[in-house]
C-alpha cells in the first residue's frame, strides 16, 4: 500500500475530491463483512432512497469487497481537501463504520488517533482518473434540489405563467418550459 504524500489529496473537481481506501480483509471474515455491509445498507441514511447519510460532506459512499472477499474498497467523493480533515475523519466518521472495519487488517488495537490516521492513510490510493457530472458541494446540491422542488410547485400553480412574466423572474421563466 502506498502512502506517498505527494499524491494527496488526490484529484479534485471543483470543491470535491476523490477519496479511496483499499483494505485487506481478515482471513475468514468474508461472510461477516458481507453481513456488516448488509446491516449498514439497512441503517437509516443508507437505505435505498434515504439520501441522508450521517456524514454531511460526502456525496456518496461505496464499500466493495473484491478478490474473493480478501480485499475491501471504500470509495467516496469528499467536499474539501480530505487530508485537512484526517484527524476529524479518524475520530467521528470512522467510528460510524466500526462494524465494517473490524473485519479488515490493522484496524483493531490502534492506541491513538495518530495511529488511526496512519491506518487510514496507509490504505489510501489516489485515483488515476476522476471526473464529475455536476459541480457543487453536497450542501449546494441539496439546496438546489430543494429550490427545484419548490419551483416545480410554483409551476403547478395555474397562475404561474402570468406570475413569471415579471421581469425579475425572467431567469426562472427561461427554465420553466420543460
Amino acid at each position, binding site marked *: 500500500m502506498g502512502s506517498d504524500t505527494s499524491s494527496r489529496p488526490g484529484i479534485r473537481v471543483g470543491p470535491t475530491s476523490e477519496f479511496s481506501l483499499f483494505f485487506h480483509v481478515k482471513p475468514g471474515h468474508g461472510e461477516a463483512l458481507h453481513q456488516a455491509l448488509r446491516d449498514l445498507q439497512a441503517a437509516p441514511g443508507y437505505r435505498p432512497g434515504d439520501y441522508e447519510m450521517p456524514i454531511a460532506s460526502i456525496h456518496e459512499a461505496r464499500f466493495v469487497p473484491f478478490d474473493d472477499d480478501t480485499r475491501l474498497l471504500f470509495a467516496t467523493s469528499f467536499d474539501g481537501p480530505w487530508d485537512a480533515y484526517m484527524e476529524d475523519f479518524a475520530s467521528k466518521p470512522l467510528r460510524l463504520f466500526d462494524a465494517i472495519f473490524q473485519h479488515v487488517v490493522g484496524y483493531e488495537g490502534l492506541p*491513538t488517533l495518530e495511529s488511526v490516521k496512519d491506518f487510514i492513510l496507509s490504505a489510501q490510493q489516489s485515483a488515476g482518473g476522476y471526473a464529475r457530472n455536476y459541480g457543487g458541494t453536497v450542501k449546494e446540491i441539496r439546496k438546489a434540489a430543494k429550490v427545484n422542488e419548490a419551483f416545480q410547485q410554483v409551476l403547478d400553480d395555474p397562475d404561474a405563467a402570468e406570475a413569471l412574466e415579471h421581469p425579475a423572474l425572467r431567469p426562472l421563466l427561461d427554465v420553466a418550459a420543460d
Partner: protein
Amino acid sequence: MSTLPPGSVHGPVDTTATGMSPALEIDDIQSGALHERPSPYVGTYLLLKVHEPADGRELIRRLIPLLQPGRELTEPGLGAWLTVAFTYEGLKVLGVPQDSLDSFAPEFQQGMAARAAEIGDVGANSPEHWEKPLGTSDVHIALAALSPDAAHLDAVVDRARRAQEQMPGVEVVWRQDCYQLPTGRTSFGFKDGIGQPTVEGAGTPPTNRGELPIKAGEFILGYPDETGGMAPVPTPDVLGRNGTYIVFRKLHTRVAAYRQYLHDKARTREEEALLGAKMVGRWQSGAPLALAPDEDDPALGADPARNNDFGYATDLRGFTCPAGSHARRANPRDSLDHENSVDVRLHRMIRRGTSYGPPLPDGVLEDDGEDRGIIFVFAGAHLKRQFEFVKTQWLNDGIFIGAPDEKDPLVGATDGSSPFTIPQHPIRRRLPDVPPFVVTRGGEYCFAPGLRALRWLADLTT
C-alpha cells in the same frame, strides 16, 4: 469493540469523568499562553537576530527571571508579562542539535513564509511584500511584553533591552509597539478577544456553557489532548514539554475601505451597523448576534459571563448570525456537530491579538495613509490542524458552509471578487465583491518553550 481509548470520545466530554489528565505544570509554562492579556493593555514586540550563539544563550539566561510563569496578571504589582519564543532558525542558531530540530512540527520547520501559498498569503499579502525582516532567516527570537500600563511595560522592556544591549552578538531587528485604542476596540471598531477556549486545568472558569473545557494538550505540549493522544512533543523532552507553538502575524487593516464599503451598501447608519455586525457575527460592543439579533446591546457586549455564552444550533441557516460571518467561521461552535465531518474541538485556537497604530477618526471614509492593524497571536499545540486548518478551511474557503465562492468577509484571503450572503426574510441579501480589508504585513511561526526548556537552551554549549 472500540478501537479507540475512552479518552478519545469527542463532542462535549465529561471531563470530570475522564479527568485522568496530569496537572498542568503552571510554574513551568510561560504566562502568555494560558492567560488573557490585560485590558486595557500596552505592549511591545521585539524580534532579535542572534549573531553570536553564546550571547543569544546568555540573553535567554538573563530573560528567565523576567518571565512570570502561568500566573494571571491581576495585581498591578506584577508589572508585565514577557513571552519569549523562537523561530526554527533561532533554535538552530542557538545550537539545538539537528535531531531535535527535526522533531518539531514540519510547518514550524518550514516557517510561515514557506507556508504562504498554503495559507493564502498571496498577491499583496505574499512574503515578497512583507516588512523586513519578517519571513526571513534573520528572525531568531521573538519577545512580547504586555502590560496594563506604559510605566510597567517600559520597566520590563528596559530590562529586556539592557539584557540585550550587554550582548553585542544579539541585534534587535524589528520592533512593534501596540496599545489598546481608547475605545477598547480594534481599528474596525469591534471589541475583540471574546470566545477564547477554556483550557482544562488552567483555572479559568468557562464562559460558554455549551463548550466544556478543552484538554490542555490542545495548547500545551506534553499533555493529553482532545483525541485521547498527545501532540508530538519535540525532543528532548525537557525542550518540548510545557512549550506551545505561537503564530505571530502583523495584519494591516484597511479601515477606510471597510467603512466605505459598508457606507456604499447601506442607506442609513443603522443599516451600516447591522451589515457590519452581520459580517463580523457580533455588534461593535462585542454583543453576539446570536443573543442580540436586532440591535447592539452594549451591556451584553461588556459582560464576560454572557457575551460568549451561546451556540448556533438553533440558527443553522444563519438568519440571526450568517454562517459566513467572521466569528462563526473562526469558531463554528455547535453549528457543525450534526454533520459528523468535523470535530470543532480539534480546531480551537487561543488568540492573543493586540492593536497597533492610531485609530482612524470616527466618520472618516478616506484612507489617511497611517499604518494600523492587528498583531494576531495564536497559541496551540498544532500549527496545522489548529491555525492552518482554521485559516484555510474556515476563513479562506466556504466549502464547509456550502458556499465555495465565499470567504471570511473580514480576513479571508480574497482578490475582491467574493460575495457575502446574509440570510434574511423574505429574501437573502448578497453583498458582491467584498474587497480585502486586511493585508498581511508578515509573520512567523514560533515556539515558546517552558521555563526548564529555556534553561536547557541557555546551557547549550554547541
